């Protein structure tokens, strides 16, 4: 199996995997970074969202080969103490129900707010449309993104 050099949460990792292995499974199975979740495997649900060079990216359809050379951030590395404004907002609003989709939601929201620091409700709703929450915590997500935007300004 070939070896790949990955830069994740500021640290370098060398992993052995087939080139077509999705980054998602490398994170979860090889590196024990299980905060990134599997929901669909076909870029439809957003549960696996990570940042690659700051952009929200579906790790289930990004191969380990393509992830090489990128700055990858996962939920575990979003902040040192779980105190990124988006995480803080998620706690303030108590967004999670079962919680499974939430790391993907947080990663999508945090990348979005980097590019749009004072979004409208409609912009928030469009930005979060790709992330499914089966527990339907959508009202809370919408509100938490608004709260996070205020915290970031």
């Amino acid at each position: 199996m070939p070896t790949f050099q990955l830069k994740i949460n500021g640290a370098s990792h060398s992993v052995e995997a087939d080139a077509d292995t999705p980054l998602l499974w490398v994170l979860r199975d090889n590196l024990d970074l299980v905060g990134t979740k599997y929901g669909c495997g076909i870029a439809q649900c957003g549960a696996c969202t990570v940042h690659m060079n700051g952009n929200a990216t579906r790790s289930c359809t990004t191969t380990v080969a393509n992830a090489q050379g990128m700055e990858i951030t996962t939920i575990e590395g979003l902040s040192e103490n779980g105190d990124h404004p988006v995480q803080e907002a998620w706690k303030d609003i108590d967004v999670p129900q079962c919680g499974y989709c939430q790391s993907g939601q947080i990663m999508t929201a945090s990348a979005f707010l980097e590019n749009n620091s004072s979004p409208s409700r409609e912009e928030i709703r469009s930005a979060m449309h790709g992330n499914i929450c089966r527990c339907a915590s959508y009202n809370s997500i919408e509100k938490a993104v608004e709260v996070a935007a205020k915290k970031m300004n």
Partner: protein
Amino acid sequence: MKTSNKISFSRRSFLQTSALASGGMLVGFNLFTACKEDVKPPVDLSLLDYNDFNAFIKISDEGKVTIFAPNPEIGQGVKTSMPMLIAEELDVAWEDVHVVQGKLDTKNYTRQVAGGSQSLRQGWTPLRQTGATARQMLVNAAAAKWGVSASECKTNKGVITNANGDKLGYGEVVKEAASLEVPEDVTLKDPKDFHIIGQDISNVDIDEIVTGKPLFGLDYKQEGMQYASVLRPPAFGQKLESFDDANARTVNGVNDVIKFGDKIAVLANSTWAAMKGKKALKATWTQDSKAESTAFHDETLLGLLNGDKFDTRRKDGDVIKAFAEADQVLERTYETPFVPHNCMEPMNFFANVTTDKIELVGPIQTPAGTAGQVARMLGRDASEVTLEMTRMGGGFGRRLYGDFALEAAEVSHLAKKPVKVIFSREDDMAAGIYRPAIKYRIAASIKDGKLTGYHLKEAAINGNMYGLIPNFFPAGAIENYQVDTANYKSNITTGAWRAPYTNVLASCEQSFFDEIAEAMGVDRIKLHMDLLENVKRTTDERIQYSPERLQGVIKRVVKESNYGKEKDVYQGFAVYYCHNTHVAEVADIIMDNGVPVVKKVTVAVDCGIVVNPLGAKNQVVGGVIDGIGHSMYGEITFNDGAPQSNNYDSYQLIRMLQTPQVDVHFIENDIAPTGLGEPTLPPVGGAVANAIYKATGKRLTKMPYMNNMDVEPVVG
């Protein structure tokens, strides 16, 4: 149902105490069964044994409280709300409480289903009694120290005081309290003195969730564990004839291929290798029983409704006579599809079957039943099985069934290795235990401006409504009332799905009532309020809903939604009682290029005392949006036994842009709390259909509505 303050229970019935070697006091209790006289909680915390006690409270000598509760979280907030009940009566500050998930005792745990809507209702009294008893022992210990009567002492947030102005923290008396007799009588708080119940409390796992800590079944790992991906028959009614695993075995990381029953497991070093290996399998299948398609189900269920083979579930008066004498008879047929559960975390389970023990770990709501099934399947003694429950990425009924745990155990047994079975999303949707397709035919008779008869017929796949459902509203409100059911046994697996049976029934009936009101020329709200008058003073014990409480939620929702007066939106109303909770809802919609958009839903809920408003609101909102999603978009069809959707590119779950704002109003009262995970879901489809009728003049009688509205189907 009123909360009474003075509670007596027999000593030693469910609670024991001990002093911990490390300092502090341990209270062990068994919520639902009595403990044996001679068992004592351990003095060493590492020896916590959940055989006799299913939960523990530790009070340290600093006064900090740890609650070890066995219920994992499924998304209904019980891991937070149940400890709140203990902490309230123990009278400590919530900041001083730490909740730890204890091990589940699968041998003695009598409440077999974990984490459902009923947990809070059933735990309401015993959990408060437990907290109150521990508090009383601490007070008794302080009183003895001071040489005063316990009745002179008061507590407030972990501090005991007496009339002389003396003060002792709980931590200062734990040692003495631990050796005292367990009191027989304790006084529960007056609800007006609650300082934790009724407060917004964040979910106890929140920090771990937002930082991505391993909590879920899919996150669980063990040294040497194999990831297993399972190939199952692609269609219901098929079985395995032969297979060729040569290509699968050449996939990097694949270690073994194991046939079990009609399934084939590919074992590998990683999830990806196992999934790839499964794709490389070649298998041929033969038809073993009927290959059923959706058209066949439709025809069969309509055939049943047209026939005369029914079981009568409730019969009041004489509907046939009422219909014969009526001025007008209305009749509608409502159709609802199969739907999968689609838990966000796909089914998965870990098993390690060895010669001396069977270890099971994963997300399951029925631990005791599943552990027993595994023991029976492998011909082993139940005492050899341990089952550890993880947090669950949603349940909605799917994790009541242990099929995936049985698969993991069987594969581990055959492979002689620890194995984690992981369903892909495709597996999860195609190997479902679906909400069955159900059709209803409802008829009503009107005479002299009165609703005189109501006849509901249900035709369902595999099972029918059960228990008290035939006695829900409008039972008791209409003189001539009958509920008949019929079913067809299919080889497609079906089961409980969030708010079983009422989830579609309520929407259909609540649409039908809209038609009845229109035909009678009366206001929809007035029709309901009048019908509920008929139920007051009922002596029929089968009627569990309260007409007063239903009228209460109706009045509240009408006021809060400005029903009938809002401009620029179309409003639809629905009201329902199920899962012991009374709910009324108004949906506001607009039409956007012929497509209905639900902008807002106003909900009035009477669930008794709201233990944790923050969590409760999440449940209410989630139920409403889930109900809209499934009535508007949810459907899985079959072709020759094969499910026709298998992932989110062919199955629509509701997403952000389709969600309304949900405005929640709780009725305030002192009645014992009831569940919230389910009851807001069933009626909302009716509210939406009634609003769409106002907008378009079209009565929607077939779910999912969007597929039956001449608009483009939505995916994504």
